[in-house]
């Protein structure tokens, strides 16, 4: 138990610290790297409470896709940091207010302030049942049986996204020289070389 608590505090502290560094860091590339660190530690926190599926999804989706996308954007675009920071003091009060409200909501939700009077139907009834097996297995059991239909339609949605992305962005550009491996390999000597008789002293 002590080991778990210790692990929790280590991961939680690194998460909060790296989240702060995302905002404070001067170099945007460092910010993204700190963001990835924060994601990894949040995944570790999920592992601690036994939500291994969400932990893995967090790593695969957020670190593997979203953060790498951010990194690409940051490195591709030439972002001027001083310009970005110009309005900081101006926006600070609003930002702080929203932050305070969200924090208060979080405390309310956890139940530290006041008493959670709203009951959420069915949550307690399902709780015990779900804990009996690990949650990857639980999701797997329903995803391909009870929710098979939703799974398939989600596939169709991705198909539409793929067709849409190709239709809207792919255009054939006539002036581009592409590599044509087949043609290049099967090029014969006659096509590639021309033998020129150079007269002495004449040049080519």
């Amino acid at each position, binding site marked *: 138990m002590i080991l778990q608590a210790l692990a929790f505090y280590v991961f939680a502290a690194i998460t909060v610290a790296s989240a702060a560094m995302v905002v404070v860091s001067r170099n945007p590339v460092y910010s993204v790297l700190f963001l990835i660190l924060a994601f990894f530690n949040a995944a570790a926190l999920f592992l601690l409470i036994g939500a291994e599926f969400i932990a893995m999804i967090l790593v695969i989706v957020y670190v593997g896709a979203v953060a790498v996308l951010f990194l690409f954007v940051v490195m591709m675009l030439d972002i001027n940091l001083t310009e970005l920071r110009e309005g900081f003091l101006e926006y600070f009060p609003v930002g702080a207010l929203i932050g305070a409200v969200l924090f208060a909501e979080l405390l309310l939700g956890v139940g530290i302030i006041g008493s959670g009077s709203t009951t959420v*139907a069915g949550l307690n009834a399902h709780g015990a049942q779900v804990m009996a097996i690990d949650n990857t297995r639980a999701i797997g059991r329903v995803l391909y049986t009870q929710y098979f239909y939703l799974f398939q339609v989600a596939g169709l949605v991705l198909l539409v996204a793929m067709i*849409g992305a190709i239709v809207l962005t792919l255009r054939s550009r006539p002036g581009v020289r592409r590599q044509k491996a087949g043609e290049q390999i099967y090029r014969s000597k006659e096509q590639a070389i021309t033998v020129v008789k150079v007269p002495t002293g004449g040049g080519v």
Partner: protein
Amino acid sequence: MIVGLENWTLARPELFLAAATALLLIYGVVRGEIATPFVSAATSVALLVTAALLFLPYREGTAFSSLFIVDRLTATMKALVLVGSALAILMSRAYFEQARAWRFEYPLVVALATLGMMLMISANDLMALYVGLELQSLALYVIAAFQRDSVRSTEAGIKYFVLGSVASCMLLFGSSLIYGFCGGTAFVQISGALADGRATEIGVIIGLVFVVAGLAFKVSAVPFHMWTPDVYEGAPTPVTALFAVAPKIAAMSLLVSVLMGPFKPLFAQWQQIIVVASVFSMALGAFAALRQQNIKRLMAYSSIGNVGYVLLGVASGSEKGIQAVVFYLAIYMVMTLGVFATILMMKRRNIMVEQVSDLAGLARSQPMMALGMLIFMFSLAGIPPLAGFWGKLYIFMAAVEAKLFVPAVLGVLASVVASYYYLRIVKVMYFDEPPGEAIDRPAFGVNRAVALVAAFLIAVFSLAPQPLSLIAEAAAKGLFP
């Protein structure tokens, strides 16, 4: 239980459409641009075959662990949507060929959007509703921006995408509240929980408001209509024709099945919302269209107004009201397709024109085209004895029976105001001097045929609304067993 045969027999039309789309996609990718005419024609045929499969033979029940439901109402609505999409694809060829944007992906994306509409019509669970809606919306965002060399088309796509995403967020937020307070996402679970006394929870009502707001966006009811004129004007005209017909019918059917299904116990709560949205839609559709010069924009406001009338039928919450909704939507589809087929024929020196003033003197240069437009406009204005009049009459009768006297009177007044701009088009066609060159003689083709058939159907429905009304009655029975 998933291998149960009933799943496959009930969802047969959807499975057929998905398989046909996938095969045509592979064919198109392999053959390249040469395949476009064939893929386009085959997709339209596949959509019509799907519509036939709905009724040959007709089966009803639930499938896929109750996520999917088929009854008379869903089957009728799906048939309308499928016919609308098939015609929209056929009507688009000439336009896209001229714009050099005729590509085989277009009919396929429309087919996938239609599949999404069918799935959302058949949704029997909040999650099924959402995936169907997203499949539809995502495909529609793509085709709104399909003419990617046109700035207006791209702008329409972006606007539709951003605002549509906000609507989806609202819908999801509402769904999560309902899930939390009712303990389930299945429509049966929700209505069960509401009947068990969960109906008084404030969280459920907030959730309901958000879900209705999300759906109101999809049918473009006031106050969630802002995207409509811009998207209708900017999108390529055949796409606008599709937008005005198929997604509207699908989203309206979804709204009806959500409100009359799981949220029946909250009738008193949602009736207020729908009545307000209805009255404001009718008013805005009437007044904002008065000064429009672009005919596509005018049709956008007209569609907002028509949604208001349909919502009035929904607000009455009775079997008569739903019957009127189905009847109105069917006639609205015929009228709208007819108008857009005529708009697609509006060319001067082979260039598409879309201003109301371009129609000046049409009665002299192209009397048949003007006569068709006259029938559509009179019908949209609700002038007796044309089909549009019967549609409005059924709606108002249902509203009066449900004791919605004030909204019904306001609706009649709005339709008087709206008839001004419908009649203005007739006036421009018949009495204004042509500004120089007349509109080209329309080429023989799909658009001419669609306009002709639509005008003919309106004549038939005007003289004999009974058969259509019987179909609508049978469909409404699906909700009131």
